[in-house]
């Protein structure tokens, strides 16, 4: 069951300008967790913009759930390196933002506000932020802000979650904690995930399939399935199997950098 499909997609941001990505073909199954890795400037973020319909391909086709994408898609969750929480809203209000926009929640907001609030509180508690619902973003640490940001990306139960280096600005310990949190959320209530990262361990830890991209114009060089059993634990990251997966990816990236 294919959920996201790229067919020979190229994109130039300016007409006749340099290509950001070239001839990218890939497919993501429903509820698959994929990671895209590569050096900076390889068009990873372009890939995200294409899937969410924020950019249109110059050539080729992007399909979401069997339909060609045209224009911004509804019902996608997104989180970035910066949490982008609204500073005038509390954690709870921030998490509830998508419910004020996405249907059918939007039109039910008035009637079911209490119910939605419970839903948001439950999700907030689920990522370990219980007790912080009524705090403002500036009162939260970086890791907590990122947890809240992921809650906001998931509250409206999107079928597709897009993560653009979501843990990039966090310290190593917090980052690994959030890996586990994300894996738990995904296992409990599966959704399709596209994770863009430059952390190879992160990619191997979280993803079912890892794509390695080359530098400008971005092309997919390698597609590699990670067949490590789930749930993966932080202990696993120190095993031979895990290390060798990371190592193979590392070699591919190293080869790109030499060119």
């Amino acid at each position: 069951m294919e959920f996201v499909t790229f067919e020979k997609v190229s994109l130039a941001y300016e007409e006749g300008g340099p290509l950001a990505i070239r001839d990218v073909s890939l497919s993501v199954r429903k509820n698959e967790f994929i990671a895209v890795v590569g050096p900076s400037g390889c068009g990873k973020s372009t890939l995200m913009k294409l899937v969410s319909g924020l950019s249109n391909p110059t050539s080729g086709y992007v399909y979401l759930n069997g339909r060609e994408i045209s224009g911004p898609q509804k019902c996608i969750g997104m989180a970035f390196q910066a949490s982008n929480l609204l500073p005038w809203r509390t954690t709870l209000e921030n998490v509830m933002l998508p419910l004020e926009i996405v249907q059918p929640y939007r039109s039910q907001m008035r009637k079911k506000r209490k119910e939605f609030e419970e839903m948001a509180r439950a999700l907030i508690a689920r990522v370990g932020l219980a007790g912080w619902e009524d705090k403002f973003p500036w009162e939260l640490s970086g890791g907590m802000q990122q947890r809240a940001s992921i809650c906001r990306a998931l509250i409206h139960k999107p079928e597709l979650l897009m993560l653009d280096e979501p843990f990039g600005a966090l310290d190593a310990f917090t980052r690994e904690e959030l890996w586990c949190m994300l894996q738990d959320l995904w296992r409990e209530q599966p959704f399709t995930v596209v994770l863009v990262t430059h952390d190879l361990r992160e990619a191997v830890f979280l993803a079912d399939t890892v794509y390695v991209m080359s530098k400008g114009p971005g092309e997919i060089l390698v597609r590699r399935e990670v067949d490590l059993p789930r749930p993966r634990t932080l202990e696993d990251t120190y095993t031979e199997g895990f290390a060798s997966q990371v190592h193979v990816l590392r070699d591919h990236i190293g080869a790109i950098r030499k060119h």
Partner: protein
Amino acid sequence: MAFNRRKFMIRNASWMLIVVLLLLWEILCVGLEVPEYLFPAPTAVWSAGVERWEPIMMHAWQTFFTTLVGFAIAVVVGVVLGIAVGTYPIVYKALYPLLVGFNSIPKVAFVPVLVVWFGIGTVPAILTAFLISFFPVLVNVATGLATLEPELEDVMRSLGASKLDILRKVGLPRALPYFFASLKVAITLAFVGSVISETVASNMGIGYLMMAASSSMDMALVFAGLIVIGVMGVVMYELFAWMEKRFTRWANRGSNSVAV
């Protein structure tokens, strides 16, 4: 003890400075025997103010009224144009050079035109107050909207939010601190505008009072008028500073800084 005294000093620094300046002013005038028709001492200004309290108040109300009406129009026009300029690049491109050019014209040069159109009195004063004070509101609202983080816009758009949704949920709340900061600037400018217009073309208002008083060499009354304008300006400024603090508390914490 020493700490408390320092705290007291900081809290009351502005009052103490005013008292010191008034004392210096008085000593200077009395000591050098400056004639009152050139530079009246504070005591002379005070007695002129007490003596002519009623006419001063009448003119002050006129100025206050024209200023507030002009300011209110400026806020409405500034917000509407600011939203247009901040939201649509084409409006920005089209309108901005024109606005900057217009803002560079000294508004006092515009008053005669307004007089020809509307006669002397209240209307030109209101319009001058409006013309001089809408620009900072416009610029700040537009800046607040235009500096929206692109990623935040992506988040909203990927939820299927319309342009209006983005404006309502993110753009406007985010521009609020900029807006309040601009109100403080705009209200003081509005006073400048209405008083300018009154000095040139009116038979009402503090500006007119000062012109009339200076032509009859009543410098004490001129200074009383100046002080009344100053006091009104400070009071309104503080009011908007208080509103700014009250409504945009979030902007004064954390990493989001605010333009002034």
